[in-house]
Each structure stands twice: as C-alpha cells, then as structure tokens.
C-alpha cells in the first residue's frame, strides 16, 4: 500500500493506486486521413510513386510484404504525394507513418 493518486470517476475524485497498465495506456489521437500508416509490420519491397506525384484514388503506392503476403498500399483519394518516409527494403513496424499526402 502506498502510492496513492487522485482518480476521477463520474465527477468524484478518489484516492487510489493506479495500475501500470492504466498509466501506460496510449492517449487517443484522431487519425489524420492524409497520413498513410503501416497496418501490419513487414518489409517495403517496392515503392511505385515519387514525392510530388499526382496519384488517383485506388492506385498502388507501394508493396508491403508481411506474413509472406504482398500487400498493395493504395491511394485513399485523389491527391499529391507530399512525402515518403520509407525506402525499398526497409522493415517497418505496425502503425508507422509511411506516406503523407498533400
């Protein structure tokens, strides 16, 4: 017993211990539609577009190979590629920012 903190539930502030899991929880961030993040850890085997290129919705941006499956990363809407954060052959973790759309 000992490490008590303030903890608000429905407007009442309690004195209580917190858990590691609670303290380490990730704050929610609103997803940015202009950011394309990896949806699975894997390897970028091919990049099909360049920075500054105009790309139509549904066109392939790159191939992310994961679990022996070559996944096409597609353009979510018509737009221009602002920045590419990954290179061919690069291993990427999950939820890594790969492409930014202008």
């Amino acid at each position, binding site marked *: *017993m000992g490490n*008590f903190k303030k*903890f*608000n*539930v*429905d*407007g*009442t*502030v*309690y*004195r*209580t*211990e*917190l*858990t*590691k*899991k*609670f303290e380490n*929880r*990730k*704050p*929610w961030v609103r997803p940015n539609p202009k950011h394309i993040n990896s949806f699975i*850890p*894997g390897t970028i085997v091919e990049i099909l577009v360049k920075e500054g290129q105009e790309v139509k919705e549904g066109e392939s941006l790159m191939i992310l190979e*994961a*679990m022996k499956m070559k996944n096409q990363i597609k353009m979510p809407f018509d737009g221009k590629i602002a920045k590419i954060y990954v290179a061919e052959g690069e*291993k990427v*973790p999950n939820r890594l920012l790969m492409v930014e759309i202008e």
Partner: protein
Amino acid sequence: MSLKRNILDLRKRKEKVLQGGGEKAIQKQVAMGKLTARERVTSILDEDSFHEYDMFVEHEARDFGMEKKELHGDGVIIGTGTIYGEPVCIFAQDFTVAGGSLGLMHARKITKIMDHALKMRVPLIGINDSGGARIQEGVNSLAGYGEIFFRNTLASGVIPQLSVILGPCAGGAVYSPALTDFVFVVENISKMFITGPEVIKTVLGEEISMEELGGAKVHSEITGNAHFYALSEYECFEQIKKLLTFIPWHNAKKAKAFPPKPPRPEYKIEEIVPSDPTQPYDIRNVIKAIVDDSDFFESMENFARNIVIGFGRMNGETVGFVANQPLVLAGVLDCDSSDKAARFIRYCDSFNIPIVTLEDMPGYLPGVDQEHMGVIRHGAKILYAYSEATVPKITVIVRKAYGGGYIAMNSRHMKADFMFAWPNAEIAVMGPDGAANIIFRKEILAAADPEAMRKEKVAEYREKFANPYVAAAKGYIDTVIEPQETRNMLLHSIEVSSNKVDGRPAKKHGIPPF
C-alpha cells in the same frame, strides 16, 4: 524364461525408461534451475502414491532418421496418484527427452490420461515443459494437439483441470492451458507465447527476450493467462495442493469440508473501511475478517487488481469471493476486471461453490481505450455470469454501489439470493458529486456562489439518496446490517441456501459475450 528372469527383464526395461533423456540432458535441465518431470510428479503427489502408465510407449516418427532414435516414454509421463489421499490424474512432459516435443504417441498418452480423468471424475494436473510440436512427425503432432484441446473442452466444468507451466509452452501448445481452469507459473521457468522472440525478430525486427514476451510475470500481471505465480517450483506445488483443498473433485460434488474456525482477532471488521467513500483500503482485509482462520486464497492476485477473486471457508465450507478493490483504480470495473470476475463466477457455479460478492465500486473505468477495447462486451460478461449462476449468491454492499456497477455486482436483479448492505452504504445511480452537477445544474449556475451551492446540493443528494434505505424501501436490499454481523449473516444465508433449487430455461448452451 522363468518368471524370475521375466521380472528381472521388466525391471531392467523400467530402469531404462526412468533415465528419461539420459544423464547429460538431465544435467542440462538441472542447470536451467528446473526439476525433472519425475521429480515434479512425485513432489506434487502424496509420497509413493504415483503409478505410471504407458512407460513402454514408442514414438511414431519414421522419417528424418528419427526411426533410429529411442525416446523414452516418448517425452511424457502419465499416471495416477493421490493428493491428501484423494485420487488425481497427472501428466508431465519430459524436456530431457527430445525437448518434450509432442508427437503422435506423446499426445496419445496425454489424451489417454485425460479420458481417464474425465471418466473417473478426478482432477487432471498437466505439467507443461515442451519445445512444441515434433516437426519430424508433421501433421500427426498437430492432430495430437487438437485431440488434447477437444478433451480440455469436454472436461471443462466437469472435472478441475490444472495446468502447470514449468518450461517453454509455445505455439499451439499454449491453448491447452488456456482452456483449463487454473494456470500456474514460476518465475524464470515458465514461458508461454504463440510466436517466439526469434520469429518476432525475423518478421518484425522487434527484439524481446522470452521472459519479457511471455514470462511468469507477464502472464500473471499483464495478460491474465496465469492464475497463480510462484518464485520456485516447490512454492508452486504448495499452491496446487492448497487450491485442491478448496475445490470439489468433480461437478456433482461439493468441496471437502474442514473443521470450522473463527477469523483471527487481528482483523477487526469495523476498523477497515473508511467512511469517506473516496478513501482507499484493502478489501482483502474485509474478506479476512469474515473467513475461517482469516485464510483467503487469492487467484489472479496481480492481474486486474481492481477486483479481487479467490476462495475462503466459512464454517469449514468453501466459498468463492468476488470483491471490488478500492485500493486499486478505486475499484472500478473495466475490461480486464470483468473478464477476471466473470470466469471465476462461472467456475464457482460449475463446481457448486457459493459466491459471496463484496461491493464497493464507483462505476466503470472511463476512457477511449476502454471503450475501444470493448468494455461493453467485456462488462456484459459479469452480468451474464451472475445471471446464469444458480449456486447460492449473496451480496454485501460495504460502501459504494453506483450505477451500472450496482446492477452488475450480483444485484437482486441478477437474482442474488440475499442482499445485505452496511449502514454507510451509498446505493445510487452515481456518486453525489456527479449526480448533483447534473440534477442541480441550473441552480448551481444561477447561484451567487456556485461552489457553495454545488456543495450544498451534493450534501442534499448524499443525504437523500446516498444511503441503503432507498434501496431497502423497495426490497432491493433485504436488510441493512452492522459490519460485525456480516460473518453470521453470511453463514446463515449460506446455510439456508444449502438445498437451493433454481432453474434456468433448458437450452444447449447460451451465447455469452466471449
């Protein structure tokens, strides 16, 4: 051959098998700080009670040069014995024989003893220490796992199934323990994961040790896969034996009764709970002030600590306790604590163990992460488990019972048999602070001194609603009791519930929010 020579031959054959994987492999096992499979079995069971079967089983691998290898007992020991004089079935994987890898015959030995346990209605103890599937045996070893999982499911809720993880337990192998009732782990020895650090490193580039990925601490604190955590194998064996004193041998029996004992005098029930509902205390002290000899055997002690579950005895009879823990996260319900409590409630209901619920909770844990993790679905498990349970169910509201938590924690509406509340109990839709802010919003905003008005209204709400008498007036609470009456009221209500008959509609099975 004369009988004498036959006997000598038998002894020689047995001796060979008893060597397991041989001197070198045993030395390696010991160097890892592990006991051998046979030492484990004999340490858990009563002295000289172990009888082994299928010693002379030979493995099935016919490829990759495996046909020339001799694997004693095919890497697993099975048998029967007794614990405190009562029969049990046991198997122990022998890591010294081909890394305890699971091939066809290895699995057949395990399923044989599982079938036996189910048929004989005795507990099954499984000691896991295996590198995984024996790759040389291909799909046969996968078939073996499947047959084990199927039997785990059949036996679930009929006989107690205990899994003891005393080495690696990786890949598909982890699903057998996951299907059993109680999982025991030991620091530095137990390792459980679906994909190991090697695969994670090659596929994902993330580096993590076995211990960090799926060690004993991880499973007892973070994942909730383990129920009992020990620092040594011997401590683990004591936990197994202690657990077995609290549970019945099968689902048509009651747990063994022990001589009644009063709680120890140092646990003074009136001095534990602070009257201010925002102040913390350890609910386990209330349980200890109630149970025989203050002996409370807690399960999942380090996981979702905001709820406490475990066994105690009242007048010698086993009782299952579910209690909110104001010490941690103010005792809120969340995804993890709901899972933890719901499974325990179902265990008690399957095995004829009355459930005592001690309630002191402010509501559900707020947060985007909880909502997105599915606190609706997880929280519903508690409602399901309590509603479904037909064993004697008694609730004592020791302080707060707010909102959805009041309903969930075995309320009258979930068909609690007895509902008691202490005189300081606050039973309401929410805490006075939150409630006053909503109900008297206009008055507070319009007041010359909003803060003073807010305080006044909070006090007004507390006075009017934050007590047990509103609920008692409707019969939702059967009686308001003094804290020191708690043990006697519980003893009495368990006693009068001993022939309880309470049906549920006939069905194949329900569809709980898994």
